[in-house]
């Protein structure tokens, strides 16, 4: 799966619309992921999972930051996220299936706050981009 020039334009475009709200999107994505897929909480046994949790907010910001980094280096996502890829392979070892769950929730958040901008074409591009990020993060698992 390769990101076309159109995909890259679409992804940059939607992230430009998201702008400064990216951190909030990250937080909401995690909240929804924990609510919808409770098994994802097993990776955060030390987290306060209540609404408005400072830990979820901080982690949401991290996740958003990583996505933005990938967008800003969309021609070389593997390079941009290399350290994160190492981290996930050696330390975190989050099962690969969970990246799809996170991606689904991010798409839902974007749909809620930017319905008009999430045209079918942008939806397709964003889904591909999120897959690519997940692939990079699990690339060194074995």
């Amino acid at each position, binding site marked *: 799966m390769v990101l076309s020039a159109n995909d890259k334009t679409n992804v940059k475009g939607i992230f430009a619309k998201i702008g400064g709200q990216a951190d909030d999107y990250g937080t909401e994505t995690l909240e*929804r992921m924990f609510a919808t897929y409770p098994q994802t909480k097993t990776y955060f046994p030390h987290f306060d999972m209540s609404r408005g949790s400072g830990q979820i907010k901080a982690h949401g910001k991290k996740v958003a930051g990583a996505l933005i980094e990938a967008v800003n280096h969309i021609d070389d996502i593997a390079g941009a996220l290399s350290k994160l890829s190492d981290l996930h392979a050696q330390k975190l070892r989050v099962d690969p299936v969970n990246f799809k769950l996170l991606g689904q929730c991010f798409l*839902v958040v974007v*749909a*809620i706050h930017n319905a008009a901008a999430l045209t*079918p*074409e942008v939806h397709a591009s964003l889904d591909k981009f999120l897959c690519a990020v997940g692939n990079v993060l699990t690339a060194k698992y074995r």
Partner: protein
Amino acid sequence: MVHWTAEEKQLISSIWSKVNVEECGAEALARLLIVYPWTQRFFSSFGNLSSPTAICGNPKVRAHGKKVLTSFGEAIKNLDNIKATYTKLSELHCEKLHVDPENFRLLGDILVIVLAAHFTKDFTPACQATWQKLVGVVAHALAYKYH
């Protein structure tokens, strides 16, 4: 048998009562064909699927989307017996249509996104969790009679 809490049933019916089945069904199927283009393999008789514009405007896609979502409504009417509701449809998708059940999961995920776009803030995390559970149950029921 799947257990639904009173809250889940309420979240399902309150959303469903406001869904335009024709529009939502068409949108969901079109997005499935656009976002996961390999799913077009089942619709070679549908004519022009050559671009997102063509897919969205294709009358066969719209009609079939409406059919699919109408059937979804049957599950909602029979939440306590979804497997039985879909016995015949499951056999059909296996024996005649030869559809990989993974496609039911893909369509379910797309439907959740279409609902999110439509209901925005009303599509709360609890709502999303309930509907994600529902689409999962429907997908499972449709795959249940596969052999």
